[in-house]
């Protein structure tokens, strides 16, 4: 511990204390934010205001946003994700997306790409391309995530499902652009529900020429079905000696992990990333939904026949959130929903799928919900 760190900490703390005391805001930036936004629309103190350079169609249901991040943004590693925040009808909405381009490309061009699948009934993904076009403004967070290739490349098996290809595209593009000799074998099993859904097809084929160890299998699930033991043995016989990376819809990840572990692949060999929340269909006739209380680590399952508010569910789980009127008036029981859909019985509206504040006492879960509580 050096004295200089303590001094920086001290100055930081003192500065925050002063901001809190003098402006009643959490920071001076928060106090000045509305004024700065007069000149830079959608500017936010805690985000990086960035420009959208291009919106590129990739397929019928996918597009890529080409973004020039703010100069202060600190870059990323292949496989990491960012939180994208945009203003829609006065409300900030945020979604997590993997960066689909490589750090090498970013160093050279100053650009990153996000490849996004349009979710049917989604409120954000179908709207983004029209709202942003070229010249739009978005806010991005610093990059985060542990889903990156090990520094020293080992024999690797990549399993991608649908839009789960994006972090792999970033990793492979990085390897190809660095033009290092990759001596280790890499197999990519890329699953999609029909041949027109394979993204970056030509690019992936080019990578195969540039990276001698790379083999890409485009697997049409309509023809040969979903990932299975048989696929493992026929596409990548020596999978037991490889590091396995999985990215795709949650059920696919759960299934693939089970298959791999059943085949004796060790847990520490398996790396995976859930790619965004599951698409939620409201008219889907599901029997139950799960509510996860993140901080207390408790999970409850609700019955569709017995409608219970989130407040009642929390209290049944022995969690005691702050409450007040219990009729949706006083806003004491506001809690942050991390993901999932709730129905507000007072306003008779469904929530968005992303992160937002909700009132526990009048909200009923309609899909799997994660709460901050």
């Amino acid at each position: 511990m050096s004295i200089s760190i303590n001094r920086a900490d001290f100055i930081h703390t003192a500065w925050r204390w002063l901001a809190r005391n003098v402006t009643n805001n959490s920071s001076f930036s928060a106090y000045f934010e509305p004024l700065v936004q007069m000149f830079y629309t959608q500017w936010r103190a805690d985000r990086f205001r960035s420009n959208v350079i291009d919106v590129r169609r990739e397929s019928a249901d996918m597009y890529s946003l080409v973004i020039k991040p703010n100069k202060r943004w600190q870059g990323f590693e292949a496989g990491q994700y960012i939180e994208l925040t945009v203003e829609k009808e006065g409300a900030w909405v945020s979604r997590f997306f993997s960066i689909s381009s490589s750090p090498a490309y970013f160093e050279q061009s100053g650009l990153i790409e996000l490849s996004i699948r349009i979710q049917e009934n989604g409120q954000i993904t179908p709207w983004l391309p029209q709202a942003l076009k070229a010249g739009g403004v978005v806010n991005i967070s610093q990059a985060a995530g542990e889903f990156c290739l090990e520094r020293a490349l080992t024999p690797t098996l990549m399993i991608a499902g649908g839009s789960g290809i994006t972090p792999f595209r970033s990793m492979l593009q990085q390897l190809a652009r660095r033009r290092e000799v990759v001596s280790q074998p890499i197999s990519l099993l890329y699953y999609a529900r029909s041949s027109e859904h394979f993204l970056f097809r030509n690019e992936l084929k080019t990578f195969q020429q540039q990276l001698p160890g790379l083999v890409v299998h485009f697997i049409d699930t309509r023809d040969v079905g979903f990932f299975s033991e048989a696929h493992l043995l026929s596409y990548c016989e020596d999978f037991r000696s490889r590091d396995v990376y999985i990215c795709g819809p949650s059920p696919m990840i759960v299934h693939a992990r089970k298959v791999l572990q059943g085949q004796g692949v060790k847990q520490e060999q398996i790396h995976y990333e859930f790619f965004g929340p599951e698409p939620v269909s409201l008219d889907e006739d599901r029997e139950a939904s799960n509510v996860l209380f993140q901080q207390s680590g408790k999970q409850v399952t609700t019955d569709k026949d017995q409608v219970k508010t989130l407040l009642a569910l929390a209290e049944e789980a022995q969690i005691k959130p702050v409450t007040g009127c219990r009729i949706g008036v006083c806003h004491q029981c506001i809690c942050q929903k991390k993901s999932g859909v709730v129905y507000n019985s007072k306003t008779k509206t469904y929530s968005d799928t992303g992160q937002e504040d909700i009132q526990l006492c009048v909200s009923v879960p309609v899909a799997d919900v994660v709460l901050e509580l």
Partner: protein
Amino acid sequence: MSTATNNARPDSATLDAFAQDLDQIRSTTMEKVGQEDANYIRNVIRVQRISEIGGRVALVLGFLSPIWWVVGVLLLTLAKILDNMEIGHNVMHGQYDWMNDPNINGKRFEWDHAADSDSWRRYHNHEHHTYTNIIGKDRDFGYGLLRLSDDTRWRPKNRWQILTYLNLSILFELGVAYHEVAGERIFMGKRRKTSNLPITRKELRNAFFSKAGRQFFKDYVFFPLLCFPMFLPVLAGNFLANILRNLWTSTVIFCGHFTEDIHTFKMEECENETQGEWYYRQILGSSNFEGSRWLHILSGHLSCQVEHHLFPDVPAHRYPAMAKEVEAVCRKYNIPYNTGSFGQQYLTVVKRVLKYSLPPKQVPIEA
């Protein structure tokens, strides 16, 4: 007037239909809420910031001419009024939570006021808005200082309660800060046996001192010292701005709740209320005043106290439009709707304070 005859409540079928009409007004309004409302509140915040910064600078320029000092006081007063009324009060009701903006959020907002915002959220958002005008449940009715209906026993101190009211008005900020602490008997009086406080008494006391202390430090130590040669004028200017703000906010709130025809309720009347009965009580417990657009904005749209009590989480600048519809619905069901000019309403407030400062007339008991 006794409360019993006051609250000759319409039958439940009527009140159900009445509730449906009001719900309709709410939902058609909420459908419109969006970019326009976000722009509106951001603009008000901008005006608040500019007046605050401008006001503090102008106070220092007081050495050039006293006119600058006066301008400074007025700008700072404006900033504080906007912060407390149109921004703070409304944001803390959750009216702008849908914006997902961490700085315009009901739970996190802290205002330029001696009262700790968490404390205010408890007794105002919860207690006052849920149990509006129920004697014994809503500590806002008379604030435990004033006798404003025959529901409370007359005491000799009520004789001069008009002076108590004036004092309260001047020191309103501190009264608001002290309200919950007083109700919990933290410093004085017999400790309450049952308390619904979600925090400990110690935490409540600390929050009270910490927030009030912070405000004191800001206006009476930090800024005067920062402008050192102008220490005294800045100190005096800040003091005056706080007092003017107090007088204004107190007057607005009294006009919204303590006009002559405001009704009170008994606990047993309000058990197992339906939505319609709840709406009905909110309407009888609040009153509006009319005026120009700036009067609405400076009062945080509490000029439409009735609509605020019916729909506390609808963005407040939508209230004047809703007021016309609510009044029409009330007329349809023959439910009293209390409104009038600002001056008229204020006069009836004074009348009410004076009227109940005298002991009730002896009513002969009928055999």
